């Protein structure tokens, strides 16, 4: 496969994840959308590394950062979900719109 095809698959993953993150009401499903977006970023980073600059390690470091970001995103997301559920039994994003202007 060529760089373009890898990037198109990555863009597809990113767009599907974006759709989920925007359209899902449940916090858990929303986070799945975010994970899917980052999944696309991983694929794009690996493709860029291989097809454009394999001599360096920047692409690899970027993947390490993204994987860490996924772990942090999920841990923090579930901690917030647990806190808000504990406080007032909310598990949907629409129930937590107090700060909406």
């Amino acid at each position, binding site marked *: *496969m060529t*760089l*373009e095809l*890898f990037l*198109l*698959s990555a*863009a597809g*993953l*990113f*767009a*599907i*994840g*974006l*759709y*989920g993150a*925007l*359209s*899902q*009401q*449940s916090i*858990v*499903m929303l*986070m*799945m*959308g975010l*994970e*899917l977006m980052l*999944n696309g970023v*991983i*694929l794009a980073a*690996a*493709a860029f590394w*291989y*097809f*454009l*600059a*394999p*001599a360096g*390690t920047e692409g*690899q*470091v970027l*993947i*390490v*950062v993204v*994987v*860490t970001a*996924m*772990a*942090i995103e*999920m841990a*923090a997301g*579930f*901690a*917030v*979900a647990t*806190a808000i559920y*504990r406080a007032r039994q909310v*598990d*949907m994003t*629409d129930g937590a719109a107090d700060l909406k202007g």
Partner: protein
Amino acid sequence: MVVVSWVLALAAVVSGFGVFRLNSMARVTFSLLVSFLAVAGLVLLLGLDYLSAVIVLMMVIEMVVMAVFMIMYMMNPAGLMPMAMYHNKAGAMTISVGTFVLLAAGILLVDWPERRGAPAPDPTFALGRSLMGEQMLTMMTLGITLFATIVATVVLSTGRGRYDRLGDDLDSATADDPLGGGVGR
């Protein structure tokens, strides 16, 4: 090789799509896992075996943990009663399709530079060298961030603080815990 990468790329996108099409939350979670595993396979095909194994390791753990939370917080985890929990579906679809079109246009129109250099003989070693060398600051930032995340998530998610455990004056000899624990605190 080419066939395998096509299959994996297709599997990644299709199972990613399945995440928002399937009814059962357990299937949704494992559909997402399949998408991750397919991407790990593609990363392996690109020659990054260490990162591929790390993705497999982390994502299996992450998805199983996610499954636990999913059952905790979803009102219909098994999808036995079909229901839709969306908001602004049309808007989300417009934005994401627009994003994809924009990205695809960029991908196809940009004149990508030629490949420069060749991969290190052992990319894993090169990555380790880099993380412990010129990218040390990145690594340290990640470490501190992870530590901060651990502290923050525990503080956010725990329902009982030290006053609940040790009394209002923090002078109780033994902590009052709902579960005993193993080291006799």
